[in-house]
């Protein structure tokens, strides 16, 4: 049987800290692809339900939401 060897045995490899970052990046890629592959359904809900859900959002989510709403309003006002 042919003996087995490694490639570039003295090459410097990543640090342990980078291993953690690698695992997080891989998890993120898998998660995003899982979401993309998931079937999408339309879910009509009453506006009042949507508005009441806003009460569950925290400060950062509300800031993001405000930015998004402002962008949408700006788009609608120019269209």
């Amino acid at each position: 049987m042919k003996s087995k060897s490694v490639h570039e045995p003295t090459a410097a490899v990543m640090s342990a800290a980078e291993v953690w970052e690698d695992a997080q990046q891989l998890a993120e890629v898998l998660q995003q692809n899982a979401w993309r592959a998931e079937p999408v359904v339309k879910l009509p809900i009453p506006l009042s339900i949507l508005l009441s859900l806003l009460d569950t959002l925290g400060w950062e989510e509300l800031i993001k939401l405000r930015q998004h709403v402002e962008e949408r309003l700006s788009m609608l006002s120019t269209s």
Partner: protein
Amino acid sequence: MSTLSLINPMGPTCAVSNTGPLISAFQSNSFKLLTQIFAEIQVSKVCQAELIRHGWEAEVKAAFPKLVAVPLAGAEEPQALIIAQQIARHPHTKDPVAENHLGEAQAMVIALRAEHSQNLLLLDELAARAIAKQRQIKLSGFPGVLLLAVQLGLISAEELKVRLDHCRVQGTHYSVSFIQQVYEMASSGPRQR
């Protein structure tokens, strides 16, 4: 992130791999684990030749059809050579000969294709990783895949340590202290980073 729902046996995530991580997978009998995470793993023709030259031909053949060798298009060859030269000039490189870095350079060129924009490159070598990051390529080393496998409950932290030890005793450049650090992270999350 603590759910097995990330893993789909027929899942949509593929990987492009350099030679080193695949050798580590073969050394530690972990190729099947890779296929639990990735739907397909592609290697460049140069990487395939390196695997065979290092004695892993039987494993490469057995890994088909999950492991696929992909040729470069003509226009991609010069791009790979430029990347190989960048790796050869990088401060972390111990080998200044560009041709000796064609395997990882070709892997990067394949990973840069539009079809892989949502996929990942498997790469361990420090210099090549630095060049890949400059080019915004999403990447992980083989130990990172094992760490995620622990986080997903596919293997235990002890199994991760055993697998990395198998690689080390067969010559892969994972030091004892490196393996211990990764094992501790797998057991309890990251410490001082």
